[in-house]
């Protein structure tokens, strides 16, 4: 299970402020704590407007890199910002993200292929997020055709089946879970990741929903998630769910995490 740490994201107010003020200490602290909490990747999203996004993303990369060993997941829809940041990364970054949208495939996929990056592929296109599992699969097929044609091996693709909020459609989680099953069946070698917390947007006490959804998604075949690694309850649920699902030989991850104080009694 690979956790992509979500906290360094300029769409969060406090992070946006740190980016504007070039507050390295704040960003570095977020990076170190997420890495210590077991993030396999650190998502880095400047969230600023396209004019300054390349500079901001470069600043973030150069601020984070010296203090953690964890590779970065460069998060932008803007090919210029991604191309600029790729120049300064020391370890091959993951790219977040491509989709079925032609402009993203044309602008971002060549970068992914050229630098042999793992890439997150969203099950949506220029018409938006498809309502049904079948329609999302049609987009996934289109994107996978494109990544294969570009020479990107399936193992480097992290397909995101997309979670929409239950607040506006109570079938939303089921659609996502069905899509995870279908992707697992049709593309056995890809990874599956998800921006988990969307599922509970607009609802109170979101963490319960997020945790149950994570558990069900793991059962369906999710092997990565974009979450807050500092959320102890979420970590506990994740580790316990993997054990229950037979993915923790001799229960060692679970008992080790317990001994390390990741979660308590």
């Amino acid at each position, binding site marked *: 299970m690979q956790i992509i740490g979500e906290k360094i994201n*300029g*769409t969060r*107010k406090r992070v*946006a402020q740190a980016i504007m003020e070039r507050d390295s200490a704040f960003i570095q602290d977020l990076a170190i704590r997420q890495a210590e909490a077991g993030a396999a990747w650190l998502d880095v999203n*400047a*969230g*600023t*407007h*396209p*004019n300054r*996004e390349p500079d901001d993303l470069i600043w973030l990369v150069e601020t984070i890199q010296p203090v953690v060993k964890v590779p970065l997941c460069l998060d*932008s*829809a*803007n090919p210029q910002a991604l191309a600029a940041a790729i120049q300064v990364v020391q370890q091959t970054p993951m790219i977040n993200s491509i989709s079925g949208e032609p402009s993203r495939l044309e602008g971002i996929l060549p970068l992914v292929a050229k630098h042999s990056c793992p890439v997150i592929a969203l099950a949506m296109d*220029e*018409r*938006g*997020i498809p309502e049904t599992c079948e329609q999302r699969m049609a987009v996934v097929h289109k994107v996978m055709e494109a990544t294969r044609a570009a020479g990107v091996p399936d193992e480097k693709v992290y397909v995101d089946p997309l979670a929409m*909020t*239950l*607040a*506006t459609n109570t079938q939303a989680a089921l659609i996502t879970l069905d899509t995870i099953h279908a992707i697992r069946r049709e593309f056995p070698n890809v990874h599956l990741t998800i921006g988990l917390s969307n599922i509970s*947007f*607009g*609802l*109170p006490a979101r963490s319960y929903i997020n945790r149950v959804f994570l558990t069900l998604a793991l059962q369906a075949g999710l092997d990565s998630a974009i979450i807050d690694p500092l959320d102890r309850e979420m970590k506990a649920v994740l580790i316990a769910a993997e054990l229950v699902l037979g993915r923790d030989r001799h229960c060692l991850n679970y008992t080790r995490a317990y001994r390390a104080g990741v979660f308590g009694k």
Partner: protein
Amino acid sequence: MSKELVNAIADMREEDALRIVREMVESDSDPMTILDAAREAMAVVGQRYEEGTYFLPELMLAGEMLGQITEIVKPALAKAPEVTRYGKVVIGTVQGDIHDIGKNIVTFMLDVNGFAVLDLGVDVPPQKFVEAIRDFQPQVVGLSGFLTLAFDTMKETVDAIKEAGLRDGVKIMIGGGQVNEEIKAYTGADAYGRDAMAGVSLAKQWVGAK
């Protein structure tokens, strides 16, 4: 009856609300009384959402109930309902972006706060905003977008409104994602709102409503 209706809608009792509406229609109540009650209830729902008692699902259900009630009442309406409105707002998610939840909440809150709102939907090209401003003649235009790339299309939309000679006739507000003073300046909008109520306050301020 109409107080009962207000409560049924405001308390999310959908079946009761629709039953009361049908009964009122059958007993020849003034359709405007029904619609007024519905609007009053919507304001209560908006208030509860603002306070944090209600959440997005309640807003959605309230919107659905309002739609169903309007359908039931429609045949009984001799003419289109005349409502006193503070002013008119054209709103939409700008081209290149398809996020609509924030925009829908702002639309709902503007509506319950007395604005006539024309919602152009998502991925709306600048030209469509220009046409809507010509036809609908709003005082306020709301541009929504969550993606950073939307800031460019917000700017293009403001420019297109300017080029069409319509800029002086409207106030433009932007919202969504991490809009701030800098983004506002970049796009050429008049103001930005961090949440739905901020948008309502701006619109009220601009049309001179209390």
